[in-house]
């Protein structure tokens, strides 16, 4: 008997296809916007993580402490700071080489190379942190360690960028939530219209002895089917649009830090989320409107 409401639900969509279509379009429009926001805020999160991940603290060792014993001590002290994930040593020679490598121009590199004989660089440690938000606190703690000449973490700007992106992402999540609620209202209203047009039907169903649950079930299924149908176009747009975006950008925006997720499975995940939102929104919307109509009736 479970299949009855499902069958009735499909039949309801077929026989009231005008109403079903207008409800589905309401869902389609909202889900399309939700999809864009989902893709956007998902990537903001990925980008933020990437930046956070690539944010390392450069700890420059004082010349006077450039010996194995002292450096080992510094390393262990850094490792003890809370929030530190990994510490990597870089010798002054490696530092100089890295400095040289910054020049694209081979001629420039040749001019600069002789300075390596009297290496102006110091030994250094590169510290990875567990959470980008903590970078400032950790830096100031490392600065206090004996033998540390200078601590550098890309400056306040980086921290600001990360926190700004985090804020945008949070606003995005709130926006998606708000849009979902809007979609529920839209579908609730259209289904309410369908139901008031079908008030007589419900009265008749009650006349022949149908319980509220028996009357409600097909309407709720109808709502879920409409919600799902409404999600199909946004799903197609998401898959197609994201593939196109990925191909156009080769998966990279601005720099390697901002790389896009692979279209498969990413666009499929988003599609799943959209279908789920559509179905849930249809369920809640139709349940609310039928229940409102069924209450307080004998």
């Amino acid at each position, binding site marked *: 008997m479970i299949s009855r409401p499902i069958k009735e639900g499909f039949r309801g969509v077929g026989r*009231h296809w005008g109403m079903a279509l207008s409800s589905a379009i309401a869902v389609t429009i909202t889900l399309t916007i939700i999809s864009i926001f989902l893709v956007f805020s998902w990537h903001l999160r990925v980008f933020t993580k990437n930046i956070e991940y690539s944010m390392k603290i450069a700890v420059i060792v004082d010349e006077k402490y450039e010996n194995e014993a002292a450096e080992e001590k510094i390393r262990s002290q850094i490792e003890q700071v809370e929030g530190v994930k990994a510490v990597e040593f870089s010798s002054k020679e490696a530092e100089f080489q890295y400095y040289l490598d910054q020049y694209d121009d081979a001629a420039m590199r040749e001019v600069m190379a002789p300075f390596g004989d009297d290496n102006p660089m110091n030994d250094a440690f590169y510290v990875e942190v567990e959470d980008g938000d903590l970078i400032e606190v950790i830096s100031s703690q490392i600065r206090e360690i004996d033998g540390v000449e200078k601590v550098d973490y890309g400056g306040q700007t980086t921290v600001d960028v990360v926190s700004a992106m985090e804020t945008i992402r949070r606003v995005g999540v709130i926006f998606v939530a708000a849009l979902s609620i809007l979609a529920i209202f839209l579908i609730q209203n259209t289904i309410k219209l369908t139901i008031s047009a079908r008030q*007589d039907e419900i009265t008749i*169903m*009650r*006349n*022949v*002895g149908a319980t509220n649950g028996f009357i409600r079930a097909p309407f709720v299924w109808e709502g879920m089917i409409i919600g799902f149908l409404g999600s199909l176009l946004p799903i197609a747009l998401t898959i197609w649009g994201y593939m196109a975006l990925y191909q156009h950008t080769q998966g990279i925006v601005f720099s390697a830090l901002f790389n896009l997720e692979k279209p498969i499975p990413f666009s499929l995940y988003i599609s799943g989320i959209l279908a789920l939102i559509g179905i849930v929104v249809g369920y809640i919307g139709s349940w609310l409107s039928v229940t409102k109509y069924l209450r307080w009736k*004998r």
Partner: protein
Amino acid sequence: MIECTHVYKKYKNGTNALYDINISVEQGEFIYIIGPTGSGKSTLIKLLDGEEVPTKGVVKVVGIDVGSLRASQVPIYRRNIGVVFQDYRLLPTKTVFENITYALEVIKMKKPQVRARAKEVMGVVGLGEKGNAFPHELSGGQQQRVAIARAIANRPKVLIADEPTGNLDPGKSDEIMALLERINKRYGTTILMVTHDLTLVNKHRKRTVVLEHGHIVADLAEGGYVRHDQ
């Protein structure tokens, strides 16, 4: 089968619809309730099918105190009675066959039995060939037959008919009457029929209760009715 004892009904807006109604209907009886518009006929039907609750008094149908039922119990109660309306009240988006099966699915009857019973009652009302038609494709008389088929499908002990011939011409009205009489005789179904069609009442004579301004003014066991102002 139907027992109304000192039943009063006053609506929330202050309208007094029924005063001290006492009716007792035996099993297998066929009874008319007649009266002009506003006499309380519709209210009586609403009390009988559980849509309204009496202000005072007791309404008992098939032994159930209808007025004391909770809202959630009303649909269950309605499975004991069949109701036929003047405007047929068929589900417009369902076929004749589906309209009848709906009433049987509601009582959770098994699928093969549902089909068999639906076919059987379609035969009883003479619409065996119209199973796939939608209500709007049928004439008024045919639609009323479907409504009757639906009402008797789950073998109710009581059939309440609210002006079942109200929208039909005399010829079709006679056919519906003949059908109701057949059901009454063949299945022993108690039938309470509300009407203001005096021609019909005088032609097919049965016990007749006359309502006026909410009062029972006559209960004629021999049937037939002569207006008292004539």
